[in-house]
């Protein structure tokens, strides 16, 4: 039997906290047998788990008990309050998981320390200081290593040593010269051949720091120097996890594509000599909660690959690295889609839109903060007095979605009352009609059941109300949901699974 029993409870039963919020809870310690202890400490940090070696953040430590003898039967209780970081947010993928932990260790000399560890879910909250408004280059969110200041003379010496080393390697590897020349020659010939057909190719992305659900216009422009046929011109959006396990000869890097979306800029056909090819497409960035990160052994990288697919000829390709960040990290810079506008979300056909110069700029006046998406005002309504709240008992769940909405309305922003209402409704199945705002992939949703994790999420308004809802659907409904467009009404039977505090909307799942 362990010398101590340790438990950690959080003040929120769902354990969901937003970046910068205070995570509160209580540590309880029950001593089973007299133990000499070098102290009891609480550690708060994030770390990765999954296929790769674990990466972790710097721990914050709090001493709960100074070194002393813990007496058998002693019961100790410590409330704690720690500030959650702004990033990295919780991520649950295939090869990589990022979780935030509170751990309590009893330091017992010369013995295995009793400890317990509990995780909480960190969602995007405050904006990291590194995000200053620059969206045209990737912002490094990992801690920088200390720069060595060697001075100009030191730099000259280092460069000289490097040059000497390169010469030495070149001298000893002369036998490799023909192979290197062949490879370099092939690349050069390919580049020249493509240039002789395509001329200068310009690709355009509005910015490389992108948030999910943003409208994003990409384009390609060139003037062919010859007439030739293409299979297609397309851009492929790729999100890929990478996890490295082991070290030395045992080191293995595993990769897993989280998302691949192909957007056709132009269908196959003949491109005429000197006829300008100027194709653009506006895509709505996928709503997956898979944000970019790059740690020493684990990463999630987003890229967009442009390709001119030419039959019987090398393809022209260009890759642009992107950084996908939570909308909250962009603040006023967020360029959110206008809910009333007809967006060309996930367009798979070619459609020439405005030329580059005519793409309308988003003015700050149309940029909206996340909470206004759900149709709520910026200032939260005052909490209604508790005695005015009518909360159903466990035996009387709301019978219809209208009754549920009415109860939620009366609870206002009182989260404990709202939780009671939602708990009472949890076992009910409601028939609802949703006016579709958008449908996105559910991948990356941290609490989706396995059957739903590869399915779709429908986001919209409950018909006839102003109330928003997001409903996760199983993978088996993917083809059915792909036929829906913004403004269509989708009907389904759903069970209520919770409340999204950030967007102020109901969360549900298709009842199977």
């Amino acid at each position: 039997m362990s010398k101590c029993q340790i438990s950690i409870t959080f003040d929120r039963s769902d354990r969901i906290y937003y970046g910068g919020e205070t995570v509160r809870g209580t540590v309880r310690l029950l001593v089973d047998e007299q133990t000499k202890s070098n102290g009891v400490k609480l550690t708060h940090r994030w770390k990765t788990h999954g296929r790769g070696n674990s990466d972790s953040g710097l721990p914050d430590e709090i001493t709960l008990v100074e070194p002393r003898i813990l007496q058998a039967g002693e019961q100790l209780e410590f409330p704690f309050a720690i500030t959650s970081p702004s990033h990295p947010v919780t991520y649950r993928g295939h090869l990589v998981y990022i979780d935030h932990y509170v751990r309590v260790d009893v330091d017992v000399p010369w013995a295995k320390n009793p400890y317990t560890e509990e995780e909480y879910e960190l969602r995007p909250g405050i904006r990291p200081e590194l995000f200053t408004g620059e969206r045209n280059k990737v912002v490094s969110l990992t801690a920088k290593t200390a720069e060595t200041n060697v001075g100009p003379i030191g730099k000259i010496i280092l460069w000289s040593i490097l040059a000497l080393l390169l010469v030495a390697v070149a001298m000893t590897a002369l036998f490799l010269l023909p192979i290197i020349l062949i490879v370099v020659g092939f690349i050069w010939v390919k580049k020249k051949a493509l240039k002789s057909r395509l001329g200068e190719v310009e690709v355009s992305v509005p910015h490389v720091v992108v948030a999910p659900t943003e409208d994003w216009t990409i384009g390609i422009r060139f003037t062919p120097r010859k007439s030739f046929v293409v299979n297609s011109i397309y851009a492929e959006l790729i999100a890929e996890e990478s996890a490295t396990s082991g070290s030395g000869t045992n080191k293995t890097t595993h990769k897993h594509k989280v998302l691949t979306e192909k957007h056709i800029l132009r269908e196959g056909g003949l491109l005429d000599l000197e006829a300008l090819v100027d194709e653009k497409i506006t895509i709505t960035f996928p709503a997956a909660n898979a944000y970019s990160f790059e740690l020493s052994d684990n990463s999630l990288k987003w890229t967009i690959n442009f390709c001119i697919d030419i039959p019987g000829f090398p393809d022209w390709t260009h890759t642009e690295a992107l950084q996908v960040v939570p909308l909250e990290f962009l603040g006023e810079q967020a360029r959110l889609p206008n809910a009333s506008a007809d967006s060309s979300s996930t367009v798979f056909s070619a459609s020439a839109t405005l030329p580059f110069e005519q793409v309308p700029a988003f003015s700050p006046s149309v940029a909206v903060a996340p909470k206004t998406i759900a149709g709520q005002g910026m200032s939260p309504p005052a909490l209604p007095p508790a005695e005015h709240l009518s909360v159903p008992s466990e035996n009387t769940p709301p019978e219809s979605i209208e009754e549920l909405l009415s109860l939620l309305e009366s609870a206002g922003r009182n989260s404990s009352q709202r939780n009671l209402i939602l708990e009472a409704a949890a076992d009910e199945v409601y028939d609802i009609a949703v006016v579709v705002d958008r449908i996105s992939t559910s991948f990356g949703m941290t609490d989706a059941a396995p059957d739903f994790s590869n399915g779709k999420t429908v986001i919209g308004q409950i018909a006839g109300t102003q109330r928003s809802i997001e409903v996760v659907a199983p993978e088996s409904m993917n083809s059915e949901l792909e036929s829906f467009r913004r403004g269509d009404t989708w009907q389904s039977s759903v069970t209520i699974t919770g409340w999204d505090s950030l967007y102020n909307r109901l969360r549900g799942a298709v009842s199977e």
Partner: protein
Amino acid sequence: MASLPFIHLNLRRNPFGEFDAEERTQLANVELGLALEHLRSRPQSHTPALQIIGQKGYGKTTHLLSLATHFPDASYVHIPEGESIAIPAVGEPLLIDEAQRLTLWQRLWLFRSRRTLVLGTHRDFTQHLKWAGRSVLTLDAARHTTPERIEKILNDRIKSVRRNSDSIPVVTSATAEKLFAMYGNDLRSMQHHLYDVFQNLGSVQDV
């Protein structure tokens, strides 16, 4: 609603992902009786040396980390591929992982020193150690690998990430035998195989 990883399996994480050194040490399931006896015997003329020999994924590092827990003054060093590193001047015994990467000079100097050595290696140094006047014990890292032991190792890993006393997935004897037939003594490949199985497991069940 709590949204915790692998809660549908009553686990904290995928048990077949990469564990850190502390977790691996706690889970180590190796028979060390002979090794400890050899290392603690200090005949006057022969300093002991222990070799753990095995291929990749057979458990050499696990053996070394487990042995280190029995010696509070031990030093452990891992030599990365293509690198030459400084050998710690203190620590008794000295545990060297990937000892086949020691430079010739390091080998000559270390083998002739009076420090107790524990080597995790692909290469057998018995003769070199004996020439240096040491008493040598060589253990095969996979010496006890049987389907029964594999079943225990895999299920211990699952239990180590259990959330509460409710049921958890169990690797059956039949699966352990199949894995043994597929991968032999290579525990790491078995873990990689089971990682994907657990990623797709929808509920608590026998595997």
